[in-house]
């Protein structure tokens, strides 16, 4: 004879946790697209940017400001206090593991999140 019981608080918590996990994986986007960008000056994390929230951010580096733009799920340098502007030329970064850097200004941006198809990127 089968018996049924009302779900207890523990059961609901487990269901909610499982739901949150599925939702976070879905929000992380398809394949290797990242969900956030971690910005550092030297070794210090100075900002964490949500790649789903468009905006422009000014980061104060060693030599001066670096300007980052978040749009269309990607982050890019639009200006920086350096002479080469290789950071700007590197374009938009949206894939988990991608890193953009303005080395003279000591500002780095690493894309995180995503389903993590790759452990690291070679370029």
């Amino acid at each position, binding site marked *: 004879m089968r018996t049924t019981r009302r779900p*207890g*608080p*523990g*059961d609901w*918590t*487990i269901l909610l*946790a499982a739901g949150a*996990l599925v939702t976070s994986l879905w929000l992380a986007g398809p394949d*290797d697209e990242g969900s956030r960008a971690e910005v*550092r000056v*030297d*070794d210090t994390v100075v900002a964490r940017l949500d790649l789903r929230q468009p905006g422009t951010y000014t980061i104060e580096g060693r030599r001066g400001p670096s300007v980052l733009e978040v749009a269309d799920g990607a982050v890019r340098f639009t200006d920086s206090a350096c*002479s*080469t502007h290789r950071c700007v030329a590197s*374009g*938009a970064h*949206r*894939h988990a*593991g*991608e*890193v953009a*850097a303005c*080395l*003279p200004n*000591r500002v*780095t941006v*690493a894309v995180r999140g995503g389903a993590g*198809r*790759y*452990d*690291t*990127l*070679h*370029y």
Partner: protein
Amino acid sequence: MRCTARLLLPLLPALLLAACGEPTVEKQRFLAMGTHIEIQTSGTGSDKAEAAIAEAREDLEYLHEGLHPWEAGALARVNQMLAATGEFTADPGTLEALAAARPLYRDSDGLFNPALGKLADTWGFHQEKPDGPPPEDEAIRSILEADPSPEDIEVDGVRMTNTNPEVQLDFGGLAKGMGVDHAVERLREQGIDHAIVNAGGDLRAFGQRGDRPWRVGIRDPRGEGVLAGLTIDGDEAVFTSGDYERYYEHEGERYHHLLDPRTGRPARGVTSVTVIHEEGTTADAAATALFVAKDDEWPRIAKQMGIEAVLRVDDEGVLHMTPAMAERLDLQKDGATTRIVELP
């Protein structure tokens, strides 16, 4: 049931990770060697991993200071002494780099030539922002006629003797590879069995991530996203030389830093060369040599340098690869034209 749930709830994240086979991964990134470094370890506690990564970082910074091609440091002093010719005492870093470079110079038929620092300087690449105009033909010719080579330097213990005043050492073609090898050696000494050392995109990986191999995405050099996936087999270095790394434009023409030692000019027709080898030093130098090699000679040069896995992307986007590379790559781009090139 309620008690069981209460006991298990705090462990839920760990249980979920364990169910997915997720190992402990420690990841740190920092700036060193003039580039962005990322080191990640697998299967090691965070304290031990952090300590090992800190030591590897010190090694990278030391090497960078010693081998910087134009800033004041040990190599700059050596180059001053080389220009004066005669005998002098060299620093350990330069001696090690020169010892590593000599066989690579010979095996590449001189296409990897770390004695051409003066040529790179003449082209305007020995500064933070490379800049033109390109040198006059006569300036290039006078350097090439002197035929600078690492063989011009005699080494006896820590003493160096140079006979060619045009010799100026520039280890830009292998310093990153050497740094990655040093970092891997240091991590292993500290008891790390699984790690990736990624130095500005060039990397060496050993061990694996939990119960699976390390997975590397090779970024498309001319577009967005990943060109191909690659699974690391044991202990391997993956290095690329590309015409997009250091360059300048002058009167509408683009000049990159990968100079052909025979012409003294930027090599043309190739966008990037990627190689796989057990050691970063060899992989780094080979990627440079195979970039400047001509279409009909690169398979022979690869063979001579002990490189089996090569991917050469030409300036029309065609992927030329050896069978050993083709069987390793999981191409992610539709419509890419590929050609398989056998080694002799």
